[in-house]
């Protein structure tokens, strides 16, 4: 099973651990992530402005490249996932945008949203299956109370991400169960950590991150997992005294026995 893979800028840098552990786990679980040869940064956010074309083209190029490679496109970072899915949706359903984007890019074959974009978690759920993930676990996380932190970019807008119920998601909890952990359900798991506002208004980001971490801790979480480097940064920076936070792939790799939480830059 081969997927085109879009790592994104952060995974090549501060979130290298997300990339490394995901690849190790994929190998163990029997699927291959083929990094797109010439990807560019997705821009971090998908502008909601209808007249923004150029800033969305990096994502469209990646999508078209995956189409040409003939594979579904897998991504890990919540932001990349959000941008790719939104760009794909716009190419498929916004004729005006698709026309302008195609005109800009001058591809050999115009792109109209043919690629299927999957988050790594969706691959685990829909392609591998939780039962097979569970069967591959060699170091179960038995007894660990782990809180999944979705944040906002992974699930919203719900109709476009089409990944899970945006207000009551289960995908990461199911993931944690497959690893043998005890998922902690807490109400702020799909609330915002403050995101990029951390640059300009660190206090606001701190407030939001704290609320999330405190809520998880209140429900007994010892550990938090996320798919988003920025969520991880904000929680880690603002609630260092709370439950430890890591990437979901780190727990996955650990449970599969292919490399545990390790050399993360920010630790």
């Amino acid at each position, binding site marked *: 099973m081969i997927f085109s893979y879009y790592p994104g800028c952060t995974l090549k840098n501060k979130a290298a651990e997300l990339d490394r552990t995901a690849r190790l786990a994929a190998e163990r679980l029997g699927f291959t992530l083929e990094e797109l040869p010439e990807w560019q940064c997705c821009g971090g956010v998908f502008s909601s402005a209808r007249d923004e074309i150029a800033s969305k083209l990096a994502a469209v190029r990646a999508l078209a490249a995956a189409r040409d490679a003939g594979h579904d496109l897998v991504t890990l970072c919540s932001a990349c996932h959000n941008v790719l899915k939104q760009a794909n949706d716009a190419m498929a359903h916004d004729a005006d945008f698709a026309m302008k984007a195609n005109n800009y890019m001058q591809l050999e074959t115009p792109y109209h949203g043919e690629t299927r974009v999957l988050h790594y978690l969706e691959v685990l759920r829909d392609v591998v299956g939780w039962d097979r993930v569970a069967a591959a676990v060699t170091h179960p996380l038995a007894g660990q109370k782990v809180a999944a932190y979705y944040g906002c970019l992974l699930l919203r807008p719900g*109709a476009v991400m089409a990944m899970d*119920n*945006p*207000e*009551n998601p289960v995908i990461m909890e199911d993931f944690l169960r497959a690893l043998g952990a005890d998922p902690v*359900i*807490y*109400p*702020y798991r799909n*609330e915002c950590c403050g995101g990029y506002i951390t640059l300009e208004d660190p206090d606001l980001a701190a407030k939001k991150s704290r609320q999330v971490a405190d*809520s998880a801790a*209140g*429900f*007994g979480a010892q550990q938090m997992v996320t798919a988003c480097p920025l969520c991880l940064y904000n929680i880690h920076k603002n609630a260092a005294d709370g439950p430890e936070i890591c990437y979901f792939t780190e727990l996955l790799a650990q449970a599969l026995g292919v490399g545990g939480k390790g050399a993360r830059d920010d630790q």
Partner: protein
Amino acid sequence: MQRIGVFVCWCGSNIAATVDVEAVAEALSHEPGVVFSANYQYMCSEAGQNLIKDAIRDHQLTGVVICSCSPRMHEQTFRKTAAAAGLNPYMVEIANIREQCSWIHKDKAAGTEKAIILGRAAVAKVHLNAPLVAGESPVTKRALVIGGGIAGIQTALDIADAGFEVDIVEKEPTIGGKMTQLDKTFPTLDCAACILTPKMVDCAQDERIHIYAYSEVEKVEGFVGNFTVTIKKKARFVDETKCTGCGLCTEKCPQKKVPNLFNLGLDTRRAIYIPFAQAVPKVATIDADYCNMLKNGKCGVCAKVCTAGAIDYKQTDQHIEEKYGAIVVATGYNPIKLDSFEEYAYAQSPDVVTSLEFERLTNAAGPTGGTLLRPSDGKHPHTIVFVQCVGSRDTSGCGKPYCSKICCMYTAKHAMLTRDKYPDTEVYVFYIDVRTPGKNFDEFYRRAVEEYGVHYIKGMVGKVAPQADGTLMVQASDLISNEQLHISADMVVLAAAIEPDKSARPLATMLTASMDTNDFFTEAHPKLRPVESPTAGIFLSGACQGPKDIPETVAQAGAAASKVIGLLSKNKLTGNPCVARSDEMLCNGCSSCEKVCPYGAISYEDKEFRMPNRTVAIRRVAKVNPAVCQGCGACTVACPSGAMDLLGFSNRQIMAEVDAICK
């Protein structure tokens, strides 16, 4: 060639002042076929009518043109006059020279000229008129009511009271519907059961009412006055004729872990059950999904304890065919599923409940015996937040675009009753608008605020966050004070939008009754025929037609019943003779007419036609059921070959009028 008489009315000076009636009569007397022409002061008077009758007899008239007021005024009068003189009433045409001539013109010459042209058009039309006889069909004097909630019950009782047989088909094991689940009713706060159950008993005891409980309509054929309906009586594995309703089986059944749907799953019941104490019919039903005997043949406890020998594990579905003259749809409503509204944490916390669940939690026959307790820990809630419009007025695709109409009032009721019984409980209601049109409704809502101190806050709840300590953090906006509120609540009650019952859509297809995009049945006319479906003989009662409360439902149920009674009291149905007719020699069988017919009056049959050289061709041709056709004429234009025409307003008649006017 017709022999036509023309009668020009003066209408006192109403016509005669602006139209030279003499000149009109004179001019029209020269039209082809006109053998008699007269003018008179008041044609509608007895003397005027006698003038017409005499002329019909004396001049052997075959057609009559009356130049007078609007046909909407006196067409019926003059048709009766003609009939009294032995002329087919549909040989009469009216030229409207008052409302559409004398009253709107001042110039007498112009008025006279126009009156002559209008008269000429009527003469031209009468030339092509043919005697029409309204079709007759017999009426089966029995009504079917589909749905046994308060709407169906009231309709059935009223029809039976007028002396007609009526059957109720109810898909649940008992009649009663949603109202049985309610505690009190607004705005009077009487107990729902106290006012409903006597009516349920009346249904059971009235010998003209037959209840098919645990049954569904499977097939409908026929038309107004003559429906044939197949009813599926689902196997309940209990012989209704033997069961005494003692309830012993429901206590002894070992399968205890069945969600009690009557209490919306808030507690459990046994696999054999009677939904509630006052059920009608009071007969036990086995839930085949949970019964060990039916699933794997291991148990049989209920059969052992039943002294009446009513348990029958071998019972199968029965199909009953019955004939009806009229059908009333009373399929009711349900609250919508809240999967798309998880920001309110309905699935994430047992203390977030729907309003209907709240009814059960406050009902003396409910899971808590009427004491309001939190489902999670059985403790008294001290702060309750009610959220209005959950899924109502929602155009995002998650909910329903319409206002569910009843939520404002029942929420006021819940808030008021809570404050009344538990004054230490703080009650917040978040609303977008409070909509209380209805007798004593606004007063009721204001009492909740002014007497009972319910906190009404204009704004919406954005998120309900279940906290580790068991409370619910309600984050909401207060639009008046322009702040975001954070209320720590013990319970949250969601006023879920209501939607038509899922059984309504397939039923509408069976009945050829039309529905709107929300699956509510459409009425024949939104203002003037609100309880009739556009399909003749199908009537609408209750929330299947649109969201409504109990008083409105009962009023509509009575109105539907009176329409049914009116229909059933006729021995024969006389249709409007001006109906569509298909010329089978011209018909292509293409179905265009059928597609635009709002009444389902057109069907098709394969018919043999003799062709040259003794060959036979089989062609699909349209047939119009004159009892069902209402005569709109949509089909006549949809038909490309001109096979479909409308009696009384035929293509040639209308074109003759056009020709006469344009000449």
